[in-house]
């Protein structure tokens, strides 16, 4: 398959997913809203309504891209580690601790915060990987449990050490200016985080497609037994993929607390965004270079939904329904996008069905 055809196919897939998402949103809005046209208008045009909302869209997209990148890395190795959420809390907490320490008075706290956050996330990603490699423990359950544990620990640290009494112990003081990512566009949330996200995408792409480690990882994902037979140490690959993915999750935590959006740490700051990375990874088929585009598209819908929640009678949470349905449909079309997939949805001619393996 040539690169041109690949890009064409992938673009078509992504546009298909976007169309499905819009259609679902439309249906839900018409069922749920008393003023469907105005609501839909808010949903579809809201993100572009002001400089601030455009900024929020871009910022959310950067975060979604990182979350998607973290998932795509483990998914490419065919590991179902779902621990990004916990890594975000771990990374955010340690970045906040650095920003609130005397180091926060210097610009050093930005690289240092990112680095420390990545280490914390990597450690959290390493645990389920190691437990699977050495103890054969199912990574799905162990990574999910770690999410809950990390959340509790993050809240504990926040309450005991970082929180300000003014906030009722649910948030810290604002970080010093020097510890907050500089905004590129004044009065928006477009900040250094966007660069970090794009840089991460480039690095992960390079690692996956230009290094021996990446090839080993992808071969392990395709067929773990073949990898072992070839002399690839697939346990090492599996653990390192989960660890690297954890580092990205941790970085996302730093992006949250040190970004213009917060500039402080708050209980539950992540707000469930991490799991939306699953959608990004699936729609992008785990390909790093597709992730920013998917993140921008989905980020737009998400921002539209949030504004709809503020301004209309439809709650923002409907985006969860749209998201789930898009995952269902896109995951179904993994092998047969486009027309064959539609045929299957419409009842399925025998020819369109996937050959049994």
């Amino acid at each position, binding site marked *: 398959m040539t690169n041109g055809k690949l890009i064409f196919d992938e673009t078509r897939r992504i546009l298909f997913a976007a169309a499905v998402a819009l259609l679902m949103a439309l249906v839900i809005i018409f069922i749920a809203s008393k003023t469907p046209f105005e609501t839909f208008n808010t949903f579809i045009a809201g993100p572009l309504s002001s400089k601030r909302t455009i900024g929020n869209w871009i910022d959310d997209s950067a975060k979604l891209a990182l979350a998607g990148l973290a998932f795509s890395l483990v998914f490419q190795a065919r590991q179902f580690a779902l621990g990004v959420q916990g890594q975000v809390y771990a990374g955010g907490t340690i970045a906040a601790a650095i920003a609130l320490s005397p180091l926060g008075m210097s610009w050093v706290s930005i690289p240092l915060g990112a680095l420390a956050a990545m280490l914390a996330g990597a450690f959290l990603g390493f645990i389920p990987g190691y437990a699977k490699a050495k103890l054969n423990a199912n990574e799905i359950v162990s990574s999910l449990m770690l999410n809950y544990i990390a959340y509790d620990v993050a809240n504990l640290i926040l309450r005991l050490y970082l929180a300000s009494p003014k906030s009722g112990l649910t948030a810290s003081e604002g970080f010093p200016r020097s510890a907050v990512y500089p905004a590129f566009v004044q009065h928006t949330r477009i900040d250094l985080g966007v660069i970090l996200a794009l840089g991460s995408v480039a690095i992960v792409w390079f690692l996956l497609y230009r*290094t021996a480690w990446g090839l080993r990882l992808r071969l392990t994902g395709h067929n773990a037994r073949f990898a072992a037979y070839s002399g690839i140490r697939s346990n090492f690959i599996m653990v390192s993929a989960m660890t690297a993915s954890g580092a990205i999750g941790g970085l996302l935590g730093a992006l949250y607390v040190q970004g213009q959006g917060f500039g402080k740490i708050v209980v539950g700051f992540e707000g469930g965004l991490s799991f939306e990375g699953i959608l990004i990874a699936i729609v992008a088929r785990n390909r790093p270079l597709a992730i920013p585009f998917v993140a921008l598209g989905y980020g737009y819908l998400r921002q539209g939904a949030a504004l709809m929640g503020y301004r209309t009678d439809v709650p923002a949470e409907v985006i969860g329904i749209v998201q789930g349905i898009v995952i269902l449909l896109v995951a179904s079309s993994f092998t047969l996008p486009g027309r064959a997939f539609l045929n299957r949805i419409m009842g399925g001619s025998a020819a369109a069905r996937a050959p049994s393996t």
Partner: protein
Amino acid sequence: MTPFLEAIGIDKTYPGGVHANKSVDLTVSHSEVHAIVGENGAGKSTLMKILFGVEQPNAGEIRLDGTPIHLPSPRAAIAAGIGMVFQHFSLVPSFTVAENVVLGVEPRSGLRLDRKRAAETVQALADRFRLPVDVEAPVERLPVGQQQRVEILKALYRDAKLLILDEPTAVLAPQEVVELFAAIRSLTEQGRTILFIAHKLPEVIEISDTISVMRAGHMVGRVPKAEATEAGLARMMVGRDVALKVTRAKPGERKHLCRISGLTIKNDRGLDAISGMDIVLRAGEIVGIAAVEGNGQSELFDAIGGLRPVETGSVELGGIDITAVPVDQRRDAGMAHIPEDRIATGSAGGATVAENFVATELEDERFVRHGLLDLGAIRAHAVELIDHFSVRVNGPDAAIGTLSGGNMQKVVVARELSSNPKLLLVSHPTRGVDLGATEFIWQRLAVARDAGSAILLTSADLSELLSLSDRMIVLYRGRIVAAFADTTELTPETLGSYMLGFAEQPENERRAALS
């Protein structure tokens, strides 16, 4: 008298474009043993799958007792009285024989499964058709020959009038074949009809009443037993007089390359798969291992290949102890491995052909420097190997999963031979591969041997083993029971008596052939 089964004008093209059956006619009489012979890839298996409802023909009609029948699924075929025993058995390992036989059509008393009645019914069937087996034993503990009986019992329990046996003798030793044939005769005496797929001609002539021959998707002939000769059938099967021949290694003194001493390996259930094996392999020879499936050969190859731990003993290759080292270090020491399953073990289906070629070479400076891939070199390497091994593929960037079986096997063979291995492990190198590719792969193995590789070969096909091996050993229940320094005079019958454990060579004779 109407024939029992008629297939008229059966045509089948697979979605991938392979035209497997070309307007095939087949007529089978009541209570006969009807053999279908043909080379691998001649379309026998496809025809049988159509008769059993696994595959749907693009055209043609099937008649049973003169009535046209439609077979959309194996269920429908079973309901019509057709049973099939595949080469790969479909038995639940932990279930007993009786449970496996009744599965799907269970006797019940109220809500409960009636185990007593199940056992009695299966026992009665086994007695009636001369298929002795312990009905209460879990099938995972039974030898292959008895597992095959369980498969036959399953079909009979469902009252199959026509029983299709897909290469039933491939996994059996010669003496087990004798028992199977006795059962087949007892079946036809009691009014059952047998369709027997095979490619070993002497057996076919012995057991069949009628023989149909397929070649390249066509039905090319139908011969009554009385008129059948091996040479005649072979000519019909191949379409020309060929006998695959591989030159033997030239005699002479050869240095020891690989020493296996006191090797013991456990199987998945924790029992000894190989116990206390000693053998020395020399440069420039092919050592064949003959064994009935499940006698430790798979575990032996996995263990030397580094996919299974060794319990005790050692494997030494070119002076390096590789008993417990990871696969990459074994490959560095000069090991290569053509595994028995090219899809499950030998390739990564979703990755490209180029990536599959380079997967074993990721430590090599030619392709990887400072951890970075040299994509140009990887691609050039792939193009070169594709050309050298005449792999039919669109290019190095095609996913290997899209290749046909023979071409995929060529990729595996090319990759493993390209490292100029000292020790080459080869399992079933031509299983499911067409004749042309088989000839090619055999020659390549001979070339590698002449270049100084020590090759350890196993195959379910005794004729392949006898054609290629310079020395042979026989494994029975994980032990070497016979060894032959010279294979020119060996016959399948001699090997068979050892393979089944009926005979054991004297210790000194064996030892002489092992060093």
